């Protein structure tokens, strides 16, 4: 019989895993909130890193590896990173064969651009919609397999929980049809979660509205470990907005954009002054902290507000059009000013989670039979992710998790099959939970409560973290968790009930917020995206370790511990972007 793998999530990672499974003769049931072609991966504008060395810079795969480890402030599993950077050029060639319309040089080769934290041109791009183009290529290939019968899509279905057999092995999932609201249990030989990042835990961020971390939180509550949850990337350049903070890609700086504010009546290019070696192309955590410092501590933001200029107006319009067209169009469209003529106004925003479900190098979680890949896992980026490394890690992780899921399906110690009774029990439990939500009639509104969750998380658990504030925040989030019980639904319809589903997701988001906050509280050092003024330096002695968060049923709080990880390839050294990186 064919092996059946459930893949939850059809972003780059889920689709890549799906392809690999089909090619290995397996069958996939693919679950997603939306048609997979609308997954969040398509938001990526800037590009994907791979050492192609076509710009006469003698770029090497080793340099890509070292930049990634150094950029991640020595918290990434080095053997895993090496696997990824080695594979990168091959993955680009695969995408090229699949028809991704990469931007090309005059001689028809794939063009490369600069990105943060890297001295060499290493970022491949497709105009200003690289993620969209990569996602579409995999979506198309998966559609071909769908036609051959190897893939069955469950789009507009929400993953609720995994099902374990009596040996504790994951052997299936429960999911809900988002229109008919039917809740059903499914069997699988292996389950892969590829559900993307948790941005919505912070309310306003650069991610899509479906990036809620709800699935990750659900399996965490079922025993999966979360690794390094405190490492949340704040992107330095976003357009603040009430519905979402829209990203202004790092490509703007890659193509020569300069960040400045007025100081003593004159433009002050503070990144160039503070970090002469990398200038505007310092990694994201460094740039975000500098902007925060300039606005919040030095009070030099534009008109006293939390904004700084990101300036492209000195670059020829024709060049901008070719390299950044779509991005600039977006700014004009959503803000109304033309960035070719006037400097843009931006501020840092929550963007990406380095942390996620803990996995081994093959993407197995600590629950046998359950795997995780893509932004929902914790692998590859350590304490800070370099720009354009995530389309890479999402894709690469799918090339690892897919084949490993097949191996497990064939050779793993999977224990007993789920009986019909097991399936019914699991579905019934989720049904009961859902019915209870439908009946909630307290005074709180779920969307309003979510807004408040976003406010506290943004205020206390982003760029600068202070222990006493984190304690306060943790208490506030616990209060929000209590208030969740007092939500009242306005919509009790049994058809396409978005409010009921959102209410279930919200509880998972709150639980995840506790994980991020607690892990941040416990790490008394500064490393990558995690910065505490009270502990301004990196403490390798105590904290060159992976944070592990484990769910405690009784308190609904995380238990935090630390484990060693593989850093056998390069020795840690101080990370300093004021000077050129030394090896």
């Amino acid at each position, binding site marked *: 019989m064919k092996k059946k793998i459930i893949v939850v999530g059809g972003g780059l990672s889920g689709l890549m895993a799906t392809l690999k499974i089909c090619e290995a003769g397996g069958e996939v049931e693919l679950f997603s909130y939306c048609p997979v072609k609308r997954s969040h991966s*398509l938001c990526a504008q800037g590009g994907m890193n791979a050492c192609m060395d076509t710009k006469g810079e003698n770029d090497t795969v080793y340099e890509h590896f070292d930049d990634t480890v150094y950029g991640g402030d020595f918290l990434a599993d080095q053997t895993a990173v090496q696997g990824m950077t080695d594979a990168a050029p091959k993955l680009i*060639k695969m995408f090229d*064969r699949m028809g991704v319309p990469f931007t090309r040089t*005059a001689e028809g080769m794939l063009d490369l651009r600069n990105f943060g934290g890297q001295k060499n041109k290493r970022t491949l791009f497709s105009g200003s*919609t690289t993620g969209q183009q990569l996602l579409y290529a995999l979506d198309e290939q998966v559609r071909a397999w769908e036609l051959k019968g190897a893939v069955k899509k469950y789009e507009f279905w929400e993953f609720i929980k995994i099902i374990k057999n009596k040996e504790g092995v994951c052997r299936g999932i429960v999911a809900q049809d988002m229109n008919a609201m039917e809740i059903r249990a499914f069997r699988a030989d292996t389950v892969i979660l590829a559900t993307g990042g948790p941005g919505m835990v912070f309310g306003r961020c650069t991610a899509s509205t479906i990036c809620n971390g709800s699935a990750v939180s659900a399996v965490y509550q079922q025993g999966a470990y979360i690794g390094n949850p405190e490492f949340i990337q704040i992107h330095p350049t976003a357009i603040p907005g009430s*519905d979402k903070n829209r990203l202004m890609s790092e490509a703007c700086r890659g193509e020569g954009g300069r960040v400045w504010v007025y100081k003593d009546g004159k433009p002050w290019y503070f990144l160039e002054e503070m970090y002469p070696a990398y200038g505007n192309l310092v990694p994201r955590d460094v740039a975000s902290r500098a902007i925060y410092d300039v606005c919040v501590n030095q009070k030099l933001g534009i008109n006293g507000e939390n904004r700084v200029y990101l300036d492209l107006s000195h670059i020829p319009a024709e060049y901008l059009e070719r390299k950044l067209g779509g991005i600039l169009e977006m700014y004009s469209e*959503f803000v109304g000013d033309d960035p070719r003529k006037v400097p843009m106004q931006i501020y840092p925003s929550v963007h990406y989670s380095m942390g996620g479900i803990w996995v081994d190098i093959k993407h197995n979680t600590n629950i046998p039979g359950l795997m995780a890949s893509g932004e929902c896992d914790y692998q590859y980026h350590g304490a800070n992710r370099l720009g354009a490394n995530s389309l890479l890690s999402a894709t690469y992780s799918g090339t690892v998790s897919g084949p490993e899921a097949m191996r497990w399906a064939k050779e793993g110690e999977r224990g007993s099959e789920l009986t019909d009774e097991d399936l019914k029990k699991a579905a019934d439990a989720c049904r009961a939970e859902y019915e209870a939500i439908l009946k909630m009639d307290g005074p709180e509104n779920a969307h*309003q409560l979510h807004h408040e969750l976003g406010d506290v998380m943004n205020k206390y658990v982003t760029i600068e973290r202070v222990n006493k504030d984190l304690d306060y925040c943790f208490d506030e989030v616990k209060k929000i968790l209590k208030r969740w019980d007092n939500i009242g639904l306005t919509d009790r319809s049994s058809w396409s009930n978005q409010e009921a589903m959102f209410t279930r997701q919200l509880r998972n988001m709150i639980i995840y917020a506790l994980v991020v906050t607690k892990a941040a509280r416990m790490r008394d050092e500064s490393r990558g995206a995690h910065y505490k003024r009270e502990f301004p330096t990196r403490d390798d002695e105590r904290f060159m370790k992976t944070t592990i968060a484990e769910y405690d049923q009784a308190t609904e709080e995380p238990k935090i511990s630390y484990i060693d990880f593989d850093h056998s390839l390069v020795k840690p050294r101080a990370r300093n972007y004021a000077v050129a990186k030394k090896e």
Partner: protein
Amino acid sequence: MAEAKKKVHFIIERQDGPNSKPYTEEFEVDYRPALNVVASLMEIQKNPVTKDGKKTTAPVWECNCLEKVCGACMMVINGKAQQACAALIDHLEQPIRLAPARTFPVIRDLAIDRTVMFENLKRIQGWVKVDGSWEVHNDAPRQNPRTAATAYEISRCMTCGCCMEACPNVNSGSDFIGPAALGQTHLFNMHPIGEYFKEDRLNALMDKGGIASCGNSQNCVEACPKEIKLTTYIAKLNREVNKQALKNMFNK
């Protein structure tokens, strides 16, 4: 005395399920600069009360990216199919009328079922046939950067369905495949490897509901939020299909 807050007035066409009767409800949302339609709908979610103070449910709609790339939030706003996230209140005449794109079956309120668009991509074999995702130790062919730029233009199609809604020949009474899939056919036929199976794609468009059902109304190119030159590519494709039809006749 504080000035009364500026309000934004919405008239929203609602429908409880695929077979229910449509009705309208009116809402008011506080104005703020740079407000768009999705952000307004989000405000209504926080307090679903109509303009007259009647408690109701929040309208159902689909959205993901809020950056005009995912295609999810397409709806008819003041009579024009467009992405709700990029529809700025400042650019719209009030009251703002929201309605589902009724070319597609309505699921609930503003949410519609666009399955047909994804099925169309199967019909035209919308992919480059690669042997597999493994390495083949051979680079893909180089491409003329200008041709690649055209491919990029078409490849930005986000399957939103604005062109389908605008096209007079796409409706429940017709089986016309519609502009989006035609544009995609041209895209895959342009690709140096995709081109190998050009004939299959052209043949698929000779069947019922294929390219011959295009009435050349030119609405699609006006409606496309990505400004894809749909009519230009459909015209090119039409010539290719005709050539192929002749070829088929001689080869019979």
